[in-house]
């Protein structure tokens, strides 16, 4: 029986590249080799730590744009050429009206983002009546807003991120549609609003877009996205990073909560 354990053997054992017989023979010899024991133990810690380091990426929800890439059925060069063409057209038209921050289409900016930010600027500063229905009547509020928007709507819980629900309200919006606004507040009194509107969006699913908007000398960080027929806008003076975390949390909670009750129109 050989005595010295080679480095190659230690790695092969760690990486389960040995046959069961080789592995048990290795374990026997390992008992007499303290240096090899130490090396193996160290390598194991490193392995586990590397796994731990990148596990969060593995567990993340797959970004929509990557899923979309795989779901394009007739993937060919024509499609690529077409998408390039659309991009150029989109870029040219958006460059004209100076809204390059809002990719894909104008209706997202006009019919979702703008009314949401406006509603935020109106109600988030309101002292007496920031909301129509207070968080204490949350169940009633969810039921009511769901009924009016003809979808299943549930105010997401952001307590984990230190934002408590203040309440919600129903709002008129563009294209003869309604929208729901949920308001949240943190310990410092900082308020954020989540604006949700059902509509016929050109894109059924977008990535979470981040942008900054200025209204009356006040800067807001805005995140907006579309998931199926619901458009979402999160507005606040919170940092972009906070907005991103909150948006992802909302996105995940809402994708579990909402199922349209009735077809649009």
């Amino acid at each position, binding site marked *: 029986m050989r005595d010295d354990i080679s*480095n*190659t053997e230690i*790695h*092969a054992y760690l*990486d389960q*590249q040995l046959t069961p017989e080789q592995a048990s023979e290795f374990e026997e010899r390992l008992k007499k080799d303290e240096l090899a024991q130490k*090396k193996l133990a*160290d*390598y194991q810690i*490193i*392995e586990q*730590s*590397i*796994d*731990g*380091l*990148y*596990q*969060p*990426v*593995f*567990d*993340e929800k*797959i*970004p929509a*744009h*990557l*899923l979309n*890439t*795989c*779901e*394009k*059925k007739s*993937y060919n060069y024509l499609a690529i050429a077409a998408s390039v063409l659309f991009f150029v057209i989109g870029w040219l038209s958006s460059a004209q009206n100076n809204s390059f921050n809002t990719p894909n289409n104008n209706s997202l900016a006009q019919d979702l983002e703008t009314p949401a930010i406006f509603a935020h600027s109106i109600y988030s500063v309101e002292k007496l009546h920031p909301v129509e229905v207070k968080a204490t009547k949350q169940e009633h509020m969810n039921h009511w807003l769901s009924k009016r928007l003809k979808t299943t709507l549930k105010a997401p819980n952001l307590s984990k991120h230190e934002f408590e629900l203040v309440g919600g309200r129903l709002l008129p919006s563009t294209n003869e549609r309604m929208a729901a606004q949920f308001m949240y507040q943190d310990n410092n009194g900082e308020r954020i609003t989540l604006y949700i509107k059902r509509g016929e969006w050109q894109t059924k699913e977008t990535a979470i877009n981040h942008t900054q908007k200025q209204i009356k000398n006040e800067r807001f960080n805005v995140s907006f996205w579309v998931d199926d027929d619901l458009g979402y806008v999160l507005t606040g003076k919170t940092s972009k*990073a906070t907005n991103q975390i909150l948006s992802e949390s909302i996105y995940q909670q809402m994708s579990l909560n909402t199922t349209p009750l009735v077809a649009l129109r």
Partner: protein
Amino acid sequence: MTLFEKKLIEYIPNLRRYAAALASNSHCHADDLVQDTLERALIKNSLWVRNSNLRAWLFTIMHNLFINQVNKANLYALESIDDHQESHISAEDPTQDYFVAQLKQQLECLPMRQKEVMLLISLEGFSYEEVAKILDIPVGTVMSRLHRSREKLRQSLFRENISPLRQVK
């Protein structure tokens, strides 16, 4: 959706994890690398032999794309740490946190060729033969690179009198 597309989606988390680890100290964005890999795979769909190892094939594509990008810009000589990568470190246990931060830094200091071998084995659990095929190098080279990278990490992480860490800007 075709079977091929379904299988592709199945491996996206694997590709994203590897890309995040691989691209952490270069200027190319991990998800862009994944996107490019998926697009290339869809175009070259016919080159994939049915029932052969799709996962290894995808990693081969990703490796080639990454190498091309690195060669093009000689990116990996540059050092930068993405902001969002930092958020993966949990702040709950300070000693663990320190170890993980150190590990992350040491990983980024590894030569790219060694790092690739180690990540394919550590994160993806590929066999040495599979890694040799993916990277198009002899199995012996896989083993020597693996040892060199692991030993480098071990030396820097477990030395008794650890010298103070170089500060990352």
